[in-house]
């Protein structure tokens, strides 16, 4: 079982992710803002974070940069309504990028892929 942190400013999306990813066997913790996310990261250990990019007046990209610097062992997947950020250099720091969709299959596959990669790296002692 993996412990996931979901960061999205939409309460319903957080609920949807939490339910769907819990069904996949993950333990899901949600945060509505970058401050809440940072707070939860300080108190808990997570295997992966899923970040929205547009967080009201905040930027998920900035949180991504902070996580890469401070929690480089935790992979991050960006999940956004905008496909254009795929071409943004700063978004390339993330381990995965998924455009939001009602069909969460792609997100689930991406989470599985990134976690498998992380497991491989741990096994290899990297």
């Amino acid at each position, binding site marked *: 079982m993996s412990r996931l942190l979901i960061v999205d400013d*939409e309460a*319903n*999306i957080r609920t*949807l992710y939490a*339910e*769907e990813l819990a*069904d996949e066997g993950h333990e899901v913790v949600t945060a509505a803002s970058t401050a809440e996310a940072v707070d939860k990261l300080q108190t808990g250990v997570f295997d992966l974070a899923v970040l929205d990019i*547009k967080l009201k007046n905040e930027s998920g990209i900035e949180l991504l940069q902070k996580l890469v610097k401070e929690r480089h062992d935790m992979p991050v997947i960006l999940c956004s*309504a*905008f*496909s*254009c950020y795929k071409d943004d250099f700063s978004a390339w720091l993330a381990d995965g990028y998924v455009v*939001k*969709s*009602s*069909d*969460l299959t792609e997100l689930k596959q991406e989470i599985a892929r990134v976690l498998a990669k992380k497991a491989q790296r741990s096994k290899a002692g990297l």
Partner: protein
Amino acid sequence: MDWECCWDRDVVEWGQCPNIREGDEDLLSSKQRRILEKCCDCERFKRDLSRFRESGHPLAPVFSLVHNEFQRQKNQIQSLASFLDNKSLEVRFLHELGSVLQSSVDLEEVLSVALTAITAGRGFGMNRAFLLMTDKERDHLQGYLAIGPRNFEEASNAWEEIARNDMDLQTLAQNFRVTKLSAERAKFHDILEQLSVPLSHHDNLLVRIMDAKQPVLIEDAFHNPDGDPAIAHLLGVDTFLLMPLISRNRRVGIIIADNCITHRRITEEDMRSLETFAFPVAFAIERAALYDRLQLELNRANEAGRKLREQQELIVRMEKMALVGRITSSIAHSIRNPLMIIGGFARSMLKNAPQDDPKRDFIESIVSEARQLEGVLDEILNYSDALYPTRDFWGVSHLVETVTRDLQHLVERNFSYSLNIPDDLPQVYVDFKQLSYCLRSILNATIDGRTDGHLVIRAHTDGDLVDLAVVDRERSVTEDELEEMLTPFSLVQDMRSGIGLALCRSMLEKQNIPFIVVAPPEGGITYTLKLPTRKEETP
């Protein structure tokens, strides 16, 4: 004493004085004028005077003295009058020349007038003239134009023609410019080519004359230490005049003139006359050359202005596009999240609903509709992306491979395709992202709703274009159906195929790429994209 001359008669009859000719009739009765104008030069009068001297009259020597002095002064006056006439002709010629030179800013016209003036009989009457001009960019003096005959036969033909037509200088120059300029340039091409010297060669005769800014008459050039045998050999004469063209201390060029046909001696006076003429010519040549450059710069400035206007329009368009982009992004965010929540929860409910749940059909409808609306949203975002293409050179094989790789899941059915893309195709200048989208849309439109079939994707070079075609031999569509396929949002009730092909057409139009769809009545459908292999000037 009987006098031979009629000086002592008040009136003479016609024929009595041998010096009175037609037009002098009034002298028959005007004794005083007759004596002054005719008698003083008359041999009979001189003999009368001699007899008078021999008579021993004391006034006879005085009279002879006065007569001689009168004759001397009369000759001097005639000489001065002749000189004055010549100078008047020269001034009139220079005035005519000056009028033409001052009024023209056309370099070819100025040069035609200048060289015609040097060689025309009513001008300076030289046989040939060569003009060398300085090329400031190359720092070189180079033969530019020449005029004149190359042999006696050609010369006599030209002079006969001039005499027959009796043209003034301007007409002569105009005639030369229109009918002979190119021919003369070609005729003297060999000599003009060799009359070339770097301006840095200050020991060269031509450069030396330009540096000195003074005309020089070179005589006996093969033996003259100040001459240049090479130039004399090239011109085929040993005497020629070198006239530097200087305007405001700038070295414009040099004129070489000679009398290679008539061998008439070139006098100091010829040289001085040409010197007077050289200044306005140099000034006119420089002015015309500057005007040419000005025209060139003006054209460049106009071209730059046109490009600037285009860029401004482009910027305005891009700003509008950016605004559209921002609006669509905002819409995307506003619509995609609720859609995702509706569809996502519906899927979640569907997953947990028992198979016999009567509400299952409703939930499935919500899932399906949400998915369809998400598709429409993707199309709209793609449409806004298509508003401004970013083009570069791409390989056709790479493009086709990228698209067909993405389509593997669609061909998992009984669908197959074959590729016929030659390796030696030139790269195409396109927006890769948009073209991938177009090709993908064509393939989607072809595959969608079918369980099996076969497609051919082929490409070949057609001049400056690469024709990329998708051929589906099994599908048939009517003209109306074809038009609907290519019209945006015409079938909003059936969004499964999306607005793909209509969007393709819009995207391709913006890249000036022809998109041709052919569906003959006997069946089959071929989509052809004519991809440019060269960068276009205009976007």
